[in-house]
C-alpha cells in the first residue's frame, strides 16, 4: 500500500504525459490512426514498466524491513499486523512528587502520585484497543488513601486516512492537558490549577467519538458521551469548591446514563509549532433524578506556540451549571453550594536553556488565575453565598529532561489569596 502511494505520482505523471503526447500528436499528424495505434502501444509499454517497478519496490521493501527493524521500547507478543511491528504494546507513565508547604513544613508530603500501566493491542491495520489502568497514592485499600482506576478503555477503528471512530471510555478533548497529561508533557511538578480545578483533568467519559485529521491542519473531534451527576454534589464537603466538576464526574463507574452529553473540539496546527484550539462539552446533569433539570457546560480556548527553544501556552476555560437556584434551595445552610459559574486562565512561558545529547534544562514561569465559584444564582437576600475570591498563583521552576522519557522537576508556587498554600515542589516523572 505504501509503495503504491509512492509510485502513484510517477504513474499519474507517465499517464498524463503520454496522454498529452497522444492528443498533441493526433492533431498534428496524418494519417492519425496509424500514429494513434503506435502511441497506444507505447503507453502500454510504459504501464508495464511501471508495474514491474512497483513490484520491484515492494519486494525490496519487504527485504529491507526484514534487515533494518527499528529499535523499540515496545514489548512484543504474537503479531498479526506486520512482521516487524508488535501487535500488543505495554506502556507506562508515573510520577513521584514531594510537596513542602513553606509556611507549614509539618505538612510536607512525598507521594507516588500515580502509576499508570497501559496496554494497546492492534487487532489489524484498522482496529486497535487502548487501555490504561492507574493506581494513585501507591496503596489502595479500605484503610489507605489510594485509588485504582481505569483511565482509558476504548476501541479505535480507522475509517480512512482522515477519519477514525472510537467507542468506550476515552479522554474528553478539552484544553491542552487532558488528553496529553503524562508528566513529561507538561511543566511543573503538579499539573496547572486551571486544568485541574476548572477542567477536571484527567477527565474521561464513556461514549462514541469521531476524529478527523485534515491536510489543512485542522483536527476535529466530536461525539456523544456520559456526563456529570449533580446528585453526587456534597454540600457538606469542600470538594466542590476545589473542583466543581471534579466532584461530580462519573468516570464510567456505574455511571448514570439518563442524560447524554455532546462534545466537540477543533484544533488547528497549520503553521508548524503553532496550535490554536477550542472545545465545548454540554449535557444534562441531574440524570432524571431531581425535580429540576440542570445542564453543565464547559468550554475553553487554548493556544500553544513553540518557536525555536520557546514553548508558550495560554488557556481560558469557563464552566456553568444551570438552574442552580432551585438545586441549591434544599442545601442552604451547608458550606458548599453549587456554583452557577467557574472559570480560570493561565499563561506560561518555557525556554530550553541548555541541551546536551538527551539532557535538556527548561526553566519556565506560569501565571494562573482561577475561581471555582465565580458566581452563585440568586437565592434571596442573606441566603445567596458570596462568590469565591479569585486565586492567583505564580509558579517558577524548571524541568530537567534526563532522557525523552524521564524528567526531574523543581518549582516554587506562590498563592496570592491563600498564602498558607505556598510551597516548594520536587518531582520525578517517566513516560514510555
Amino acid at each position, binding site marked *: *500500500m*505504501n509503495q503504491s*502511494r*509512492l509510485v502513484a*505520482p*510517477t504513474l*499519474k*505523471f507517465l499517464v498524463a504525459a503520454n496522454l498529452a503526447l497522444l492528443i498533441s500528436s493526433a492533431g498534428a499528424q496524418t494519417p492519425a490512426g496509424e500514429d494513434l495505434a503506435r502511441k497506444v502501444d507505447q503507453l502500454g509499454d510504459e504501464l508495464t*514498466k511501471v508495474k514491474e*517497478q512497483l513490484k*520491484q*519496490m515492494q519486494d*525490496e*521493501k519487504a*527485504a*529491507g*524491513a526484514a*534487515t*533494518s527493524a*527499528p*529499535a*523499540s*521500547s*515496545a514489548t512484543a507478543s504474537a503479531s498479526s499486523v*506486520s512482521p*516487524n*511491528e508488535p501487535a500488543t*504494546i505495554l*506502556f507506562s507513565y508515573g510520577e513521584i512528587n514531594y510537596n513542602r508547604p513553606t509556611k507549614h513544613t509539618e505538612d510536607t508530603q512525598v507521594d507516588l502520585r500515580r502509576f499508570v500501566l497501559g496496554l*494497546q493491542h*492492534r487487532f489489524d*491495520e484498522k482496529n*486497535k484497543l*487502548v487501555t490504561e489502568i492507574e493506581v494513585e497514592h501507591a496503596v489502595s485499600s479500605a484503610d489507605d488513601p489510594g485509588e485504582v482506576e481505569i483511565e482509558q478503555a476504548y476501541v*479505535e477503528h*480507522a475509517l480512512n486516512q482522515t477519519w477514525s471512530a472510537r467507542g468506550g471510555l476515552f479522554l474528553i478533548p478539552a484544553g*491542552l492537558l487532558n*488528553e*496529553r497529561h503524562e508528566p513529561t*508533557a507538561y511543566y511543573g511538578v503538579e499539573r496547572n490549577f486551571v486544568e485541574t480545578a476548572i477542567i477536571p483533568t484527567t477527565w474521561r467519559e464513556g461514549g462514541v467519538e469521531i476524529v478527523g*485529521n485534515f*491536510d489543512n*491542519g485542522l*483536527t476535529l473531534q466530536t461525539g456523544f458521551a456520559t456526563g456529570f451527576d449533580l446528585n453526587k454534589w456534597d454540600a457538606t464537603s469542600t470538594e466542590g469548591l476545589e473542583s466543581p466538576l471534579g466532584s461530580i464526574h462519573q468516570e464510567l463507574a456505574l455511571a448514570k446514563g439518563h442524560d447524554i452529553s455532546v462534545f466537540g473540539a477543533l484544533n488547528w*496546527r*497549520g*503553521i*508548524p*509549532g503553532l*496550535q490554536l484550539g477550542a472545545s465545548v462539552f454540554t449535557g444534562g446533569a441531574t440524570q432524571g433524578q431531581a425535580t429540576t433539570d440542570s445542564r453543565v457546560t464547559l468550554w475553553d480556548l487554548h493556544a*500553544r506556540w*513553540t*518557536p*525555536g*527553544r520557546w*514553548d508558550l501556552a495560554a488557556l481560558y476555560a469557563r464552566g456553568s451549571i444551570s438552574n442552580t437556584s432551585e438545586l441549591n434551595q434544599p442545601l442552604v445552610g451547608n458550606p458548599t453550594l453549587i456554583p452557577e459559574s467557574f472559570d480560570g486562565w493561565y499563561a506560561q512561558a518555557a525556554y*530550553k536553556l541548555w*541541551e546536551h545529547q538527551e539532557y535538556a534544562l527548561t526553566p519556565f514561569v506560569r501565571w494562573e488565575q482561577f475561581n471555582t465559584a465565580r458566581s452563585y444564582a440568586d437565592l434571596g437576600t442573606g441566603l445567596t453565598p458570596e462568590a469565591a475570591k479569585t486565586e492567583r498563583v505564580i509558579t517558577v521552576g524548571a524541568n530537567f529532561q534526563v532522557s*525523552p522519557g524521564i524528567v526531574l522537576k523543581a518549582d516554587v508556587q506562590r498563592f496570592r489569596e491563600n498564602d498558607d498554600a505556598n510551597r516548594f515542589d520536587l518531582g520525578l516523572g517517566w513516560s514510555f
Partner: protein
Amino acid sequence: MFPDAESFDSRQIKLDSSQMQQLDSQGVQARSARWVVRTAQRGKTPLGFVVIDEVIGKFELITYAVGLGLDGAVKQVEILSYRESHGQEIRLPAWRKQFVGKTSASPIHVGDDIANISGATLSCKHVSDGVKRVVTVVDLARKNGALQ
C-alpha cells in the same frame, strides 16, 4: 517525489564499522548497517535518491520516505503510514516542508531548525532524527561513490 523518473535503481549500502563510528561522531545513530537507497533515473540520467524507512512514533511505527537531490539535499519528505491515536499532524504538508533543502550539515533537530508540534513531540523528534540519519547515510554513500 520524482515525477520525471522512469526507473528506480536500488542499491544496498552496507556501512562498515568505521563508517558507523563516523556517523556516531556526527551525533547520528546509524541504527542499521544495511540501507536500501533507490536512485531515480530518467534514461541513464540520475535524478536523485529515495530512501524508505520506519521509526517508532510514540508506540507505533511511522513509515516515511525521504527524497534527496543529487547534491544530497532533501527534496521531499512523505509520511506513508501513521497510525498513532494522537499526533497525526506530522502528516501535514506545512510540517514536512521544513525538511526541504536540509543537508547533512543542517541540524535537523526539533527546537532548532524543525518546529515541534504540540502533543506529537516524540513523533516529531523520531521522524526528524530519522531524516537526519537518512540524509547523513546518503551523504556518506555519495561521497564514497557507493551510489554511482
